[in-house]
Each structure stands twice: as C-alpha cells, then as structure tokens.
C-alpha cells in the first residue's frame, strides 16, 4: 500500500493529481468518476460575463496545442450560485480560480470568492491570452508582489498563485509571490506562441497569439519548477505537458509537491485516473511507501557514466 496523499500547506490531497484550470469541468463526469481526483479545479472566473475570443480557438502544433479561449465566463455571480454548488456534489477539495485586469478588482474578486465553499483560491495572474502585448502581473515581480499581497490581506483561505513561463526571471516572480504570502505556486500557465496557416497566410487561431500547452513544453516547465523549488520554501504544483506517469515523477523529482494536468484530458479523457493508478503502481514497484517522498528527490549530480564527466571542466 502506497500512501498517495500529499500536503500543500494546510490542504491535504488524497493524491497529487489535479486537473488544470480551463481543462476541466463537471462535464467530465460523462466519462469518469471525479471523486478519484486529488482536487477539482474550476475554470478561471472573472467578475463580469466575458464572451471569450473568436474561433478557431485552438490548433495542433508540433509539441501539443495552442489555444486562445479568452477566459469566457458567466461571471462571478453565476459561479458562486451555480458552479460552486455543482462542484460541491463531489468530494475532492475545490480550487476556485480567479482573474482580473486591475489589482483592485483582483482584491474584490478574491474577497467575494474566498467566502464561498471553495477550499483553495487559485490566483491566475498569468493568462497569456488576455493581453497579447503581455501585460500580465506574473511577468513582473513587483506587480506579482503587489497583487498577491493585497489578496492575502483579504482572506485566510489557502492561496495558490499561478505563474507565467513568459516571465524572463520566473524565480524572482516566485520569490515575490512567496514574500507576499502565497501558500503555494502553480508552475505554470501556457507559453505564448504563434501558428500561421501557410495556406491562408492567416493566424491559425482567431486571436492570433495563443498559449502553448502539451508535451512539447514539459522540459521548459520542469526546469522552472526545479529553479523555483530551489528558491522558495512553499510547495510547488507542476503544470505543463504531463501525459504519463513518468512525467508526474519527473515533476516531483524536480521539486513539485503535486501536479495539474490539462492537455492529456483532451487526448485521453480518463487519463488522469489512469495516471493516479499508474503512479501508485510505479511507487510500489520502486519501493516508495509514500508518493510524497518523490518531491525534490532528484540527484543533482551529473550521471557519472563516463570518465569524461570527470575529465571535462564544465563550461
């Protein structure tokens, strides 16, 4: 028997597998038992109704997919009155994700949403599709600090801050979020990309730029998780390109306490449950009594396979 539970600050998850915001809804109960998941993560909500971006909203790219959905939402009232109760039919902790364009609105959103039955507040300061010029809070450490600080003051609910891989110095942003009182970091949102249709010469998706997700971005985000885990003390939730058990292991070795999964659900709708089962088997076979022991268990030294490793100075 493997102990599959993990602790993210005050929150205990029965296993480290969660969906990523925007890639999950109770609609998935069509094909799977949602109670298997470590947590439920709602689609990002903002105060007002938003239509979202023009279609096509997604396209395949070489390493996965590109999307620009544009955070469509029925708004905060609908979320609190209908969606929270809908999610609360299920047992795993509920993570509510919020977004706003001003720091004041973020504060007000956090106050209103934190009062609901959600268990964790996820602060999405990193959606690459909101402002194509890249004006997201998570690109800059001061902006991140300011918004997180203000939100922290409004609520005691566990607060997870979702970072952006488009930041030049993600470690500085991670530290700023920690200083400002984040309970955990989600590393990370999608990477800004562009696909051009070479038949039509037009962008492949309606909003021109979009966020990359899927297997191709994994080595970049694993690197960021590793860097952030070395720099902060709060738990990190790895997110980007997970499609198999070994990907979860890789994120945990790099320092993640848990993971979120987006793209895989599109390819294999019940993939998250398969990964929970497979991860337990993997731990059993490798002799890990607790999955949590994987976190940060990477051996930092180079693979000493060759004498050359000793002989060659690192440039």
């Amino acid at each position, binding site marked *: 028997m493997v102990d599959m539970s993990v602790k993210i600050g005050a929150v205990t998850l029965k296993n480290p597998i969660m969906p990523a915001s*925007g*890639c*999950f*809804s109770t*609609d*998935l*109960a*069509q*094909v*799977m*038992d949602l*109670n*298997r998941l470590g947590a439920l993560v709602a*689609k990002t909500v903002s105060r007002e109704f938003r*239509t*979202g971006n023009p*279609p*096509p*909203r*997604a*396209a*395949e*790219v*070489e390493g*996965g*997919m590109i*999307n620009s*959905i544009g955070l*469509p939402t029925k708004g905060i009232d609908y979320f609190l009155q209908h969606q929270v109760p809908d999610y609360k*039919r*299920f*047992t795993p902790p509920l993570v509510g994700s919020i977004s706003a364009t001003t720091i004041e609105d973020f504060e007000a959103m956090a106050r209103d949403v934190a009062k609901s039955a959600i268990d964790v507040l996820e602060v999405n300061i990193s959606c690459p599709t909101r402002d194509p010029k890249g004006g997201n809070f998570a690109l800059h450490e001061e902006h991140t600090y300011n918004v997180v600080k203000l939100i922290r003051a409004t609520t005691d609910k566990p607060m997870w801050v979702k970072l952006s891989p488009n930041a030049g110095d993600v470690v500085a942003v991670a530290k700023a979020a920690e200083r400002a009182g984040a309970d955990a970091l989600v590393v990370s949102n999608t990477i800004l990309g562009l696909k051009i249709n070479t038949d039509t010469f037009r962008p492949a998706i309606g909003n021109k730029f979009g966020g990359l997700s*899927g*297997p191709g971005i994994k080595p970049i985000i694993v690197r960021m998780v590793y860097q952030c885990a070395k720099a902060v003390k709060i738990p990190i939730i790895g997110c980007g390109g997970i*499609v*198999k*058990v*070994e990907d979860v292991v890789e994120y945990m070795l790099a320092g993640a306490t848990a993971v979120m999964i987006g*793209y*895989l*659900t*599109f*390819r*294999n*709708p*019940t*993939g998250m*449950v*398969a*990964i929970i*089962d*497979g991860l337990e*088997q*993997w731990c059993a076979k490798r002799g890990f009594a607790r999955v949590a022991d994987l976190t940060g268990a990477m051996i930092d030294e180079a693979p000493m396979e060759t004498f050359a490793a000793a002989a060659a100075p690192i440039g």
Partner: protein
Amino acid sequence: MSAEPFASAPYVVGESARPVTVPHIPAQELPAQELPAEESLCPVVSHDWVNDEYKHLVVEASPKALTVTPGQFFNLLCPSPDVGELFFRRPQSVYRIDRERGQIEFLYKCVGRGTRGLATLEKGDELNMVGPLGVGFRLDPAWRQIVVLGRGVGIATLGPISQAAREGHVGVTAILSARNPDFVMADGFFREAGDVVSVLDTDGTSAVENVERILQSLIVQRLADAFFTCGSNRLFQLMKRLGKAHNIPGQVAMEQVMACGLGPCYVCVRTFEVDGKKELRRVCIDGPVFDMQEAVGW
C-alpha cells in the same frame, strides 16, 4: 523482450492508442448511475473507399457506444499518417447504427492529417473512440413527413435520423447535394428510408434557387413537417429562411474544431442568436444539433 516498457500508460507507450482505463463506479455521494460515454477500442470490420475522397468505416462497437443516437458523434484518436504525432482527436458523427450486428459506421472525407491517418486503418485494427457524445436530432411524434437536406460530409450525419424516421414510420425526403454523381453518396441507403432527390453542380441542379424550388414544392405538398440539414452554410441559410417563412421547425448539425469534445475547454463555440441577442454555444455538448432558427451559420 525482457526490458521494461519505456514509459507507463497512457499516451506515449505502445499501449497509448488503447483506452487508458475503465471508468470507475461513481462514489456513493453520487447516484449510482451509468456513465453516458466512454473511451473504447473498437475493431475495424471493414473500411472502403466510396469515391476519390470519401471512406466508409464499419467498426464493432462496445455496448455503450451502441447507445449512440442520430446526430451524436464520437471523438476518434486517429493514427498518424506520418512520423509526427497527432495531438487532437477528430470528431465524426455516426453515419449508420446497426444495433443487431453491434456495428457503428462512419462516412468521412479525407481532408487533412487526421482523416488521412484514419484512412490507414485496416480490417482487424482497433480504433480508439470516445463517445457517444453530444446532443443529437429530435423526432417529434407529431411529424409525419420530414425533409433532410445534406451536402458533402453532411450527408453522413443525416443518415441515422433518416433511418430512425423510417423506423418510426415517418416519411423522409432526402435532398442530396454533390459536386457530381460520384459524390452522391449513400443514395441507396437513403432510398430505403424514403424518397431521394440528387442535385448536382455538374448540371446546375444544386443551385440554391433550384433547391428552393424543390423545397417549396415539398412544402406545398405538405411533405415538410420538419427540416434537417447539415454540410452547407448556403443550404442551411435557405432552409432557415423557408422554415421561418412557413413556420416549419428545423434542426441543423454543426461542426467546429474541437479539443476536448466533452464540454470543459470552450474551444468548439459557434454563434447563436435568441431574441436578437447573440451568444456562443459549444458544438460538442450543447450540440452538435441545434435549433435552425437560433443558429447563425458558419
């Protein structure tokens, strides 16, 4: 080979085209119920070219897959036609349901990598399908005569509703629009269900004005209690206009690029208009079949 598999399921392993898990029984907090859809592996029974562009695929379906109703679709994990990966599934509506033999059929056009990959499947291979998905066509018991109007791949989607109409003793007139006689597909199949009128680009009969004349005459003959269409925006607009003018209820099956096929991602939206107000709906879960008067088109 004694070595460990390179990576565990799902996805990158040799097993990755296989369904990744059997869905768990819902926890007791939920009413113990059957899940409506599943990921299943269906052996290919036959797979033939219908003409230069279209293939007809028959698979042995799982019991749950066989609960599919007309207008619903499956999201197919197509094999890759080349050395690159395919990252999205491809939706295909069901073209024929043979519950006796436990078979489901698709009729599809090869347009890009996904369908070209699908076309490589051979008898005995297994196809990974998620479904049945979406809201299908509705048949009102009050209707005695319906008109289905399809063009191109739209013809495939209209198959099962015609079949269902016949089984419900509802008369069907099928207007099948195509580039040339080679692309009038499945007319035999539709003929079993009712009358078939083929209209072609080659002889000009597929012109909107001509189709309008045919529809008008069906309306006059009281052979049009309801309209069904799929596959052409021009023909959809025509039916919508006539339906509105003559107060004939209508349904349209729509398409859109999909990612999840299940509702969460909001990739597959199209515009609808109700009481002058526009809104976006998801083709995968709010549709693919929509009220004709509410749909705006594509």
